[in-house]
């Protein structure tokens, strides 16, 4: 533990901040605050930083699965290196009192004097729900009933061998919603992340046991988020999905296996099934009793104990303290809270009327532009003329609206982007903007078609909203919302359908909803769902396209539904209208935008950073952000949060405080430079701009110091001050095993391993920093083996580091072919110390 500083000495000289909770949200806040002239206190009740996610396993298989757990060891390390951060481990906050414009915080075990702080971030996190009731009994009774928390630890450690023995075809059952979505236990909310967690676990298990027979028992499937959805579509084919969560596990039916009972279609009855391992996918419960310990703060919690946004401006809530969240959202929350505090503490002078460009001309873009305007920025909207609902430009005062102009090029980089635009008429225009927010509208496609498109009783949810708002009298007595479409409807569409159904029944009409996977989103989703059922909205469950038949009748529509819970019964009723969602697909214009921004689309063609470090809203290029449906499956609530995150990021971008750590470590020697512009061309972050006609220049704010340009410069004109060419290249390495380890992944994983005596580990900023020449020299100097230990594909901060390393490895091996030498590339994540050890030093 760091020595406790005497806070009194700071009291009147600088602002001090307290972060309660050393998990993802707390650490990410500390990571930002720690770079400023602030005294930051991080209080953690356990003996180590990192929170729940610290013990989670890497989920990467062939590629990174974007969970973000590997960021934790990096954040912990960063926190340890920050001088102005005082970490209080093994301590809890016992009392907080507002006093003289500050907060007086008492810690347990007690200190000599209480701490006085100016701002507090509540990042108190969550507790995984411990299985209780009958499930709890079974969990404690059977070794082979484990939770997802246990599974994480097992996967991070020695694997499932001790649980599954020699079997190559293990039968594994995942039971979802353990502990949550339970009104009787006071936890009638969806924990949001567990389905995603289980799907990643299953993917990981299938990579180890390709023949494993895996069943996922679910109540509803929360497969929101584009990547989760496409991962699910693939994975869903290799596993068995069973609707219905067993609540009893027995060991009495089959020797050595666990038994559950479920209803079975084929037999029309209940059947027993047997498993080698049962994984309970446990939900998220609030982790803090702070509402009680800090009565002076007037903190409020929702009915489940998650903290609500405080009225007191000095208090910020971040991460799972506010509700169930995944790692990346918690991280974004923590950073956002920290940036708000920086602003409140005066580190961010008011914006200097700089312009931010918003790409897109839909409702989302307008909402973003308005938020920018309200925060003192100028907003420039650049559309593609796609929007039919964009309001009169005059109503958006302070917003420059250019929906029909054509964007020709994007030059420059963060803080100084130059957008060249060809207006409707007139000469080319150049706009200088400090940042770009991409919020282009998605292409919407109706998810359901009927025999006769001329039917006047089929409406999209968007169209229905207009009718509901303006001419509700036209709505018939019974309306069917069809959310059982393919693929699962976007989150926002599902949420709107549920809200509209509720409005209809409250107005005395009938509403029915067909669902396939999930109608519950967000913390309060289940409340709406419960209310809807209670008030008589009927929910039908279908599993197949064929389960819904809709015909025309004199009364309107005749609907026949094969409900998943009833055997051999088709339910029939009449409805006036059918309302269907629209699926979101990438707009054809996205490709052009991506080309202009020199960014790549995700596998589905949307805007999304390939690397979790930039997510949720960032991109590989500093100053370029993504928001709304063009990058993820977002609803209105998500978009508001994204806007907050982006705004705070933009405000910190604008400031280059001299006291800040800077990245200006990569320098081009203009006398050695031959102006080939290789660096300009390959920089994954577009951090290199051309100045004075033809001179490449590294923009420090945009550079992340990966070193790709250094290792790729044919003229050897680029140097990196914080990382010199490994001196190893001049040494004699007789018989040594050399590992070049990425500082973000393998080098962190290596920290908790003991290296064998004849092994040298060289930390590099990115494996792409190691060029073929260095590899050859290392070999010629006598290394007995060379390994490039980089990141999992898809998790390289510099996007192409791992790919570059692989191709250089192959090239080196070709060159060294006759010598029998072999250079290997091996991917690791920072949270894989055990795998690092096993893969590189087997048996040691």
């Amino acid at each position: 533990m760091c020595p406790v500083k005497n806070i009194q000495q700071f009291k009147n000289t600088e602002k001090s901040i307290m972060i309660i909770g050393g998990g993802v949200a707390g650490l990410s806040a500390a990571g930002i605050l720690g770079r400023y002239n602030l005294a930051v206190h991080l209080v953690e009740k356990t003996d180590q930083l990192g929170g729940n996610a610290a013990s989670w396993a890497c989920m990467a298989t062939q590629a990174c699965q974007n969970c973000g757990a590997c960021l934790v060891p990096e954040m912990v390390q960063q926190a340890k290196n920050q001088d102005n951060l005082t970490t209080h481990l093994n301590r809890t906050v016992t009392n907080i009192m507002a006093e003289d414009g500050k907060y007086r915080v008492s810690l347990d075990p007690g200190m000599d004097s209480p701490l006085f702080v100016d701002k507090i971030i509540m990042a108190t996190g969550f507790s995984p729900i411990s299985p209780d009731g009958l499930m709890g009994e079974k969990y404690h009774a059977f070794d082979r009933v484990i939770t997802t928390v246990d599974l994480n630890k097992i996967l991070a450690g020695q694997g499932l061998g001790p649980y599954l023995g020699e079997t190559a075809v293990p039968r594994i059952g995942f039971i979802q919603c353990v502990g949550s979505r339970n009104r009787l236990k006071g936890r009638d909310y969806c924990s949001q992340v567990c389905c995603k967690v289980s799907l990643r676990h299953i993917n990981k298990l299938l990579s180890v046991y390709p023949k494993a027979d895996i069943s996922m028992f679910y109540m509803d499937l929360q497969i929101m988020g584009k990547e989760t959805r496409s991962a699910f579509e693939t994975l869903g084919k290799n596993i068995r999905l069973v609707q219905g969560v067993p609540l009893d596990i027995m060991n009495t039916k089959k020797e050595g296996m666990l038994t559950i009972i479920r209803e079975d279609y084929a037999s029309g009855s209940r059947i027993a099934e047997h498993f080698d391992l049962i994984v309970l996918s446990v939900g998220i419960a609030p982790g803090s009793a702070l509402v009680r310990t800090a009565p002076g703060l007037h903190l409020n919690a929702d009915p489940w104990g998650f903290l609500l946004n405080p009225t007191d401006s000095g208090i910020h809530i971040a991460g799972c303290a506010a509700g169930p969240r995944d790692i990346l959202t918690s991280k974004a929350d923590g950073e956002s809270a920290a940036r708000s505090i920086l602003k409140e503490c005066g580190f961010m002078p008011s914006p200097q009327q700089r312009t931010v460009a918003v790409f897109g001309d839909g409702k989302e873009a307008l909402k973003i532009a308005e938020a920018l305007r309200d925060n003192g920025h100028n907003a420039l909207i650049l559309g593609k003329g796609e929007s039919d609902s964009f309001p009169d430009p005059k109503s958006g005062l302070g917003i420059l609206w250019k929906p029909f102009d054509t964007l020709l090029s994007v030059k420059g980089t963060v803080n100084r982007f130059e957008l060249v635009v060809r207006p409707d008429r007139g000469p080319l225009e150049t706009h200088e903007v400090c940042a770009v927010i991409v919020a282009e509208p998605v292409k919407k496609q109706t998810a359901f078609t009927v025999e006769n498109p001329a039917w006047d009783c089929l409406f999209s949810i968007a169209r229905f909203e207009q009718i509901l708002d303006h001419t509700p009298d036209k709505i018939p007595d019974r309306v069917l919302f069809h959310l059982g479409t393919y693929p699962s409807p976007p989150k926002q569409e599902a949420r709107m359908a549920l809200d509209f159904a509720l409005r209809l029944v409250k107005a005395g009409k009938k509403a029915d909803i067909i669902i396939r996977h999930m109608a519950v989103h967000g913390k309060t989703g289940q409340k709406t769902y419960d209310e809807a059922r209670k008030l008589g909205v009927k929910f039908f469950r279908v599993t197949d396209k064929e389960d819904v038949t809709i015909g025309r009748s004199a009364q309107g529509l005749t609907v026949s539904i094969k409900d998943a819970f009833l055997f051999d019964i088709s339910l029939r009723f009449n409805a006036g209208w059918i309302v269907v969602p629209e699926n979101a697909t990438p707009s054809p214009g996205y490709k052009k935008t991506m080309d202009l921004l020199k960014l790549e689309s995700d596998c589905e063609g949307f805007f999304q950073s390939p690397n979790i470090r930039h997510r949720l809203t960032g991109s590989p290029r500093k100053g370029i952000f993504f928001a709304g449906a063009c990058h993820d499956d977002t609803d209105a609530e998500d978009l508001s949060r994204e806007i907050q995150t982006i705004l705070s990021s933009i405000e910190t971008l604008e400031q280059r405080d001299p006291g800040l750590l800077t990245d200006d470590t990569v320098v081009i020697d203009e006398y050695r430079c031959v102006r080939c512009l290789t660096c300009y061309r390959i920089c994954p972050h577009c951090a290199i701009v051309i100045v004075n006609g033809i001179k490449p220049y590294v923009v420090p704010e945009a550079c992340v110091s990966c070193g790709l340009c250094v290792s790729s410069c044919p003229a050897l004109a680029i140097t990196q001050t914080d990382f010199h060419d490994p001196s190893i290249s001049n040494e004699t390495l007789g018989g040594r095993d050399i590992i070049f380890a990425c500082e973000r992944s393998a080098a962190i994983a290596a920290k908790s391993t003991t290296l064998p005596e004849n092994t040298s580990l060289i930390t590099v900023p990115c494996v792409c920093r190691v060029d073929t020449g260095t590899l050859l020299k290392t070999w010629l100097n006598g290394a007995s083996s060379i390994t490039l230990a980089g990141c999992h594909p898809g998790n390289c901060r510099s996007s192409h580091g791992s790919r570059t390393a692989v191709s250089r490895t192959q090239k080196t091996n070709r060159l060294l072919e006759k010598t029998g030498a072999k250079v290997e590339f091996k991917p690791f994540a920072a949270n894989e110390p055990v795998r690092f050890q096993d893969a590189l030093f087997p048996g040691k």
Partner: protein
Amino acid sequence: MTTIDIKDDSTLLKQLNLYESDDNVSECLTCGACNSRCSWFDGEGGPVPRQMVRMAVMGLDEELIKSGMLWDCLLCNRCTQECPMGITMADVVRKGRSLPDAEYLISEDIRRGVASRLQSGDVNGLTREDFVDTMEWLAGEFAEEVDDPSAVIPYDLSDTEYLYLPNPRELRTNVLHLTAMAKLFYASGVSWTMSGSHTDVTNWGYFISDDEVARKMALMVIEPAEAMGIRTLVLSECGHGYYALKMMTEKLIGRKPGFEIISMPEFILQQVNKGTIKLDPLIHPFDIAYHDPCNLGRKSGMYDTPREVLRLSCKNVVELLPNRENAICCGGGGGMLQDSTSKAKRMITGKAKAEQIIASGVRHVAAPCLSCHRQLGEISKQFNLGVTVDTIASLASKALIL
């Protein structure tokens, strides 16, 4: 595939959607937990709990009746013990059974029993004369048993502290159980009586789910007992009888009865605590497992009292797993045991209990319910368990130190 028009206001749905009481099948989350907890387990046939709720929600009253699930259900409530929405399956099924169209499902035995009970106060049609005959015949036996020529089994006394309400089987096929109970009253020295006017602790109105019948049956016990001026009604060990009289009466008759209602194990524990009787657990020097009757445990919340009495009466009480709230039904609940044609089904529903007993390794099982007692005896025979089954009170009676 049958096509059925859904009904938004079926009779059953209206009855089950009492929003203000949170008793609302429409709220079913369709989580399916109930399916995994049915006391039929993976046995052939039987109800699919979630489907019953689903049929109710969709207004498929007729299909629910036709499905046969209503009377295959053991009303054990195990399936909905941890229902996240607090749905109570026994309520759903009982409301289903009470539908006018479901009347034909009632078994002949139960139909006859209900008629007899309403007519004569006893499901077996025991008349007052039969009762007096039995009592007189028992008097001599009892005096011999307790070795006290003056000892009697009192009946039709007024103003006693206790009135013992027997199970009809105690007056026909299992009179030894009655003398065992009488012995406990005798030993404790309390003023007690039986009554020729009501000899039946059961209330099959509960099974047929006809609240009017259940109310009449309850009043047939309560009003004469009140007239006798008793202070406490002691119920013979009977699961549904206890549940109906103790837990449902107030709702059925709209008032509290003018006396306290306790079960036999409760009576015994009270007397032991007062020091009026003493029990010697070494009389039963073997391992004995306690079976939780659904009506007593899950439905009435009584778990500890009978266990305590069993511990006082036997040397080593072991637990069947799972137990208490999650206990497995004997397989005879919900009126099944009262239907003589149900044997084959009861041997399916009893299988899980049998396996549970085998897993525990015991040769003795105790249950504070004469229905469970009979069913457990039958499954012991069927599955060759070699298990002796006793009621709690009879074990206590044998353990009495006179």
